[in-house]
């Protein structure tokens, strides 16, 4: 079956800085693909090119067999974009916003009416459709923001960090909506720097850092890259440098990473239970006292740390 999105060798430079450097992507029909990376990794630039907003300096983008461009490309009718910002006119109602973006997509008459009602129903705002956007809560705005990306029934929905700044309840509603859309067969390209969202929603995940796609695969495939190892997060007081050196030399300690927080470090180990007691025992000799130990099973955060040497939220 033809993929909904195929990107090959995407490159985009801003002056001397290369924001996206040779990215290849492929999203199948009905697949929710996660693009995971910290702020500034190149996620938004990548999806801006996929949505036809930015022209790539090199590479190609094909949407369901149609080449994408920044002009009035037919491929744009196949893509729905949900930007990170609330891309709506605050002085218009939800319905007026949806009609405007629907018309830009070429919808008219009864078809437009039907689509407006359908997407308002989908995001649960039919009863508030005549209210101005600036009267909505943050979560409601986010839902209309998603509805505007769906108004023209795209084949590929691009969601750029749709839960940033959203309260937990609205966030859960949004994630449930996206799960429902994926379940209904819509292809979704989802960017986030929240590892747990990518794990929940996406069958495959691409990890992007410094403009390069450093790894791609299912969660299981990515975790296998770092091995089925546990991570122990050590919180301590006193001479952490000395403690870190002592812990790194303990039997079973495979790798040690110091994050930005000076009171914590992270140890990778094949067997966490055996290491915990040894860490506590080594602390006094290193001039430190352990205040906390947390064992984490392998996840995408660990994969990201392993591949890039930095945390997702850095």
């Amino acid at each position, binding site marked *: 079956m033809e993929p909904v999105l195929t990107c090959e060798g995407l490159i985009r430079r801003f002056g001397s800085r290369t924001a996206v450097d040779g990215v290849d992507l492929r999203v199948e029909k009905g697949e929710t693909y996660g693009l995971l990376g910290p702020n500034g990794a190149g996620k938004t630039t990548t999806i801006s090119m996929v949505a036809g907003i930015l022209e790539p300096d090199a590479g190609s983008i094909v949407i369901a067999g149609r080449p994408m461009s920044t002009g*009035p490309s037919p491929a744009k009718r196949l893509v729905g*974009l949900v930007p*990170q910002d609330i891309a709506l*006119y605050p002085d218009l109602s939800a319905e007026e916003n949806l009609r405007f973006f629907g*018309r830009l*997509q070429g919808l008219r008459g009864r078809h437009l009416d039907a689509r407006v009602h359908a997407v308002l129903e989908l995001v649960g705002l039919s009863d508030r459709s005549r209210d101005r956007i600036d009267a909505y809560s943050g979560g409601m705005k986010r839902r209309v923001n998603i509805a505007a990306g769906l108004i023209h029934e795209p084949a590929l929905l691009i969601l750029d960090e749709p839960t940033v700044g959203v309260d937990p309840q609205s966030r859960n509603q949004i994630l449930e909506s996206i799960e429902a859309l994926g379940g209904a067969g819509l292809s979704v390209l989802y960017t986030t720097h929240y590892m747990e969202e990518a794990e929940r929603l996406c069958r495959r995940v691409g990890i992007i850092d410094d403009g390069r796609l450093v790894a791609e695969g299912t969660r299981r495939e990515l975790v296998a890259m770092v091995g089925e190892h546990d991570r122990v997060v050590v919180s301590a007081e006193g001479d952490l440098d000395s403690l870190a050196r002592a812990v790194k030399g303990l039997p079973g300690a495979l790798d040690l990473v110091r994050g930005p927080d000076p009171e914590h470090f992270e140890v990778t180990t094949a067997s966490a239970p055996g290491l915990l007691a040894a860490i506590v025992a080594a602390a006094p000799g290193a001039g430190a006292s352990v205040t906390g130990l947390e064992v984490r099973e392998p996840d995408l955060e660990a994969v990201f740390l392993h591949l890039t040497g930095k945390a997702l939220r850095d």
Partner: protein
Amino acid sequence: MAASLVVAVTDLVRRIRNRSALIVAIGAPVAMAGVFGLLLDGATSAHFTVGVADADRSAVSRQVAGTLVDPAGGSGGTAESGADDRIRFRTFADESALRRAVDDGDVDGGVLLPDGFGADAAAGKRLTVVALRDPRRAIGGEVAAAVAASVGHEVAGVGLSVRVASGLTDRPPGELVDAAGDRTPAFRLDEGGDTSRSIDASAFFGASMAIVFLFFGVAYAPRSLMKEKEDGTLARVLASPIAPGSLLAGKVLGVALLSAAGFVVVWWVTTAAFGAAWGPPATVLILIVATVLSISGVSAFVCGLARTNEQADTYTSAVTFVLALLGGNFVGPANAPPLLQRLSLLTPNGWALRGFTAAAVDGAAPHEVLGAIAVLLVVGAAFGAAGWVLVGRRVVQG
């Protein structure tokens, strides 16, 4: 085109909703027309009052002063009158009263006939007529100087005639001077042209300021584009199958319609409420449309140059003031120095003012201002095309 209309209509709806449309299309134009109508009602050109004092008090000086004040009645004139209604003369008892009036700004300049004026005239000596000026009233001072020079020449001419005539008659020269003085022509300001042709000041400044206002009005397009970029809606609009140029056209179309409405309101209010004579309606309407299109093209160009909302504001202000100064919006092309008059031909507003002036002064029909209309449309198209390209490159490409 359909996408441009969708953008334009949505922008208009939003502006009507936030009332800025009412301000641009009705409120501000009515206020502007009201101000110009009230301040310049019926004015066609500048008026000057020149003071006259006779320090000589001879028969000749009395005759000259009297003739200035009342060309028909000679020395029996009223205290304040004039040969034409643009220059009025006002007599003062003596030199000090005249100097005080000039210093206080009661008159725009002064003409003093000094002691010995009559004797010098009779003797055929070089005549002195003193012009008194106030540095703050440069033009009034120039008018007074012109009057003084004219008086000197007139009286000297009469003296020469008398001396020639005295060789042909046995009448004494003094008697001949008095007789010739009776026929001294009244001073008049010779414009060397058709004085029946004049422009209604409220029509000129109404059009002129409406053009300046137009610059500010259409500046909403680049500001709106930059605002959408900052708010994120631009990304969503550009993700739809619409060319960046069509988006630009929609933005400019919306503000152009409002600006044109504002221009028409200025025209209508100054005409209906203050009787301003703009010229044939068809010519005025076509000129308004051409001017709006031209300046909208300039606005589209600014859209392409600006990367931020602040830049859009700065560029718009700079373009507005430079073009308004060069185009003669503040002084009128005809009153500008020769270099500025030539430079005004490089500006769309300069051509627009020429068109509006032709309509108001000569009652020019549309075909008689085709040159101005053509230049306006070409300028609008050229700048609009440049803006179309630049928006694609700079706004869209980040």
